[in-house]
């Protein structure tokens, strides 16, 4: 019997045979998607990139001959201009940074907890809870924002409930004070030390950077956690169902308790899911727009202004199209930077020496025990 290796298929020699024209067919089938993505995604993005380097004023085509290249002027106006544009950008970054800092870890933790709960085989009515937790995610964010405005109004349900336990609730969506400043004020600290108030970054003093999210922004933070945890719960649930029960069983036989099984066995296997959830969370949080647009439009005191909304406002309301596009691309860079950073943080590390030692078996014991076995 002679064994012949199957001939290697090469796209370059696709002149004959049943696979002739395969590549062309492939392109034909992907063409609709490519064209749609190109027309509605790639080209607009490239045009926006051009606008961010141009002096386009919002009338006629940005590619026409009377629009000229102005280099980094638009980027300079929002980062080093020293005017209102820079300050607004600084404020929006401050607001959004606090939003991200609170929403991403909390929603990741909450969605993981929810997934662990509904993944337990003994839980009654699992289907019901899964649906209930997922429900906010399928509701339009506009509808939820309107609901939130009612719930968190001065005389709304939330403040009513707080009053039952003797708390005089804040004037949520009208309170521009930062929660960290408020906390410090309750210890009698009304203004920051000279080093923080005298120096500033992007037109905002460091003391103001540390104000924390405003009370109004906090309401949006609750809302983001409430609405997105369901979606991410679903991702974690899918991940959990891929974790083989054999490994759990093996860990149990080794004497691991529930917490150790979760922390040393389950969670490391969920690493790709955690990466996905944190990445999606970061992107979504840095781009927060519709809640702001329908809810507060940046009020009170600009403390719910976000870069995405500021970009819209600069372009469409103030007719500063270049600055608006520049803000959008700075936001893009921020998101990419954060994604790369957390990819690095969540990378697969080599097991450290110290950790290896924990698993190493002492040769002396092995020798003696095998000697015993040999007897």
């Amino acid at each position, binding site marked *: 019997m002679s064994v012949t290796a199957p001939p290697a298929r090469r796209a370059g020699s696709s002149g004959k045979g049943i696979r002739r024209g395969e590549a062309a067919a492939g392109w034909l089938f992907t063409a609709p998607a490519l064209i749609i993505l190109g027309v509605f995604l790639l080209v607009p993005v490239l045009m926006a990139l051009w606008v961010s380097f141009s002096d386009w004023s*919002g009338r006629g085509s940005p590619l026409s001959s009377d629009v000229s290249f102005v280099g980094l002027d638009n980027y300079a106006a929002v980062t080093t201009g020293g005017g209102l544009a820079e300050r607004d950008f600084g404020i929006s970054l401050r607001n959004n940074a606090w939003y991200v800092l609170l929403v991403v870890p909390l929603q990741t933790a909450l969605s993981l907890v929810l997934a662990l709960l509904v993944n337990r085989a003994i839980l009654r009515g699992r289907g019901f809870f899964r649906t209930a937790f997922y429900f906010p995610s399928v509701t339009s964010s506009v509808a939820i924002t309107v609901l939130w405005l009612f719930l968190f109004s*001065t005389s709304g349900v939330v403040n009513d409930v707080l009053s039952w336990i003797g708390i005089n609730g804040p004037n949520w969506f009208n309170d521009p004070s930062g929660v960290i400043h408020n906390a410090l004020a309750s210890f009698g600290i009304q203004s920051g030390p000279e080093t923080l108030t005298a120096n500033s970054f992007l037109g905002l003093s460091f003391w103001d950077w540390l104000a924390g999210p405003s009370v109004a922004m906090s309401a949006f933070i609750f809302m983001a956690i409430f609405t997105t945890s369901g979606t991410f719960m679903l991702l974690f649930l899918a991940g959990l169902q891929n974790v083989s029960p054999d490994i759990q069983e093996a860990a149990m036989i080794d004497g691991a308790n529930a917490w150790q099984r979760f922390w040393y066995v389950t969670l490391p296997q969920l690493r790709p899911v955690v990466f996905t959830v944190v990445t999606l969370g970061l992107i979504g949080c840095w781009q927060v727009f519709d809640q702001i647009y329908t809810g507060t439009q940046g009020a009170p005191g600009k403390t719910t202004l976000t870069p995405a909304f500021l970009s819209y406002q600069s372009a469409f309301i103030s007719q500063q199209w270049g600055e608006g596009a520049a803000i959008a691309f700075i936001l893009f860079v921020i998101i990419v930077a954060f994604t790369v950073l957390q990819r690095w943080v969540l990378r697969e590390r080599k097991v450290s020496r110290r950790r290896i030692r924990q698993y190493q078996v002492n040769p002396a014991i092995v020798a003696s025990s095998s000697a015993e076995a040999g007897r």
Partner: protein
Amino acid sequence: MARHHIRTAVGAGALGVVAALTLSACGSGFSDGGGTADGELTSSEDGITVLIGSSGDAETTAVEEAVAAWSADSGIEASVQVANDLAQQLSQGFAAGTPADLFYLSTDAIAGFAANGSLQAYGDMLANKDDFYPSLVENFTVDDTFYCAPKDFSTLALIINTAMWEEAGLTDADIPTTWEELDAVAAQLTTADHVGLAFGAEYQRIGTFMAQAGGGLVEDGQAVADSPENVEALDYVKGHLDDGTFAYAADIGTGWGGEAFGTQKAAMVIEGNWITGAMSNDYPDVDYVVAQLPAGPGGQGTLQFTNCWGMAADSPNQQAALSLVEYLTSTEQQLAFSAAFGPMPSIQSAADQWRSDNPELVAFLDGADYAQFPPNQQGASDVIADFNAQLEGLSSGDSQTILDSVQSNLEATLG
């Protein structure tokens, strides 16, 4: 690898074709230019599109009927579109080169659109040009060019709850004409259930106090925000926010002054003509009177707000649009609009008729004699937005510091 290379080549080629197709397609959609630079109006057989930002059904119906009547009269097709986000829809139209022919245009937006050449200035061509109130004409004058016809206007006045007024033992003679009298009645009207005077935390209300103190934001093109008069005005407001006789609408759990007044959380509010519509629709049981705002150390002062009928530079039929504007701003038509949805006619020839039609609202029209208007320079609306953000923290802030920052922002904007 050969296979890899071919793929890349085909991929790049396909993307290139897509990009080229798209760009050429876009190119035909964007038409450059259009408006004539020398001020001649275009003329064609094209119909007219009117884009409005409506306050409600009453306004939409009134404008639709008026435009339909003009259309039947002139034989030129005309349609009305109601924008749900006027600024955005206007911007889109201008960028695409296919804007509406006529549209509502606010004093905030005029400088930006005038600067990029989107607007056709037609003010000086209006047959009824001299009939408009001069201060309204000034509102829509950018770089000494009168751009567009004011469509109507509103001023701010003091709205007083009659029942609470009588309950506090006050009479018509007590209607405040000075800040001292305002102090007194506000204190008398403040109870556990309601405050004396409420208004929104914004320059568009608090600016009346600045005007009454003799201040303002811009004078002869120069920023004057940090003047001692303005400081005095903010200190006055701050003092009363602190003693509880004045309150911001938001701080008593309402969205704006009209809601604070309608829900009886405030005995008096500073609001404009639009409050009459809200009161009859939402709070028909609350009786009120409209009085002029009291005079401060600098005399009487209020603010006026207006929109104009903007005309697109890219409109193919500007002559027809001009004739439609003249129709819509005629005495008869403005009185009809006023009856339908509230604002005051922008022309002086309609004033007497309006006074006799609306005897209880004349305080609004009286305000036109001494009203200031928010600065209309490009970028000024951003400065005012920032000012408003700081005014929300007025009771814990410092008037001078706030006004200093407004001054530096305004100076940067006015250049």
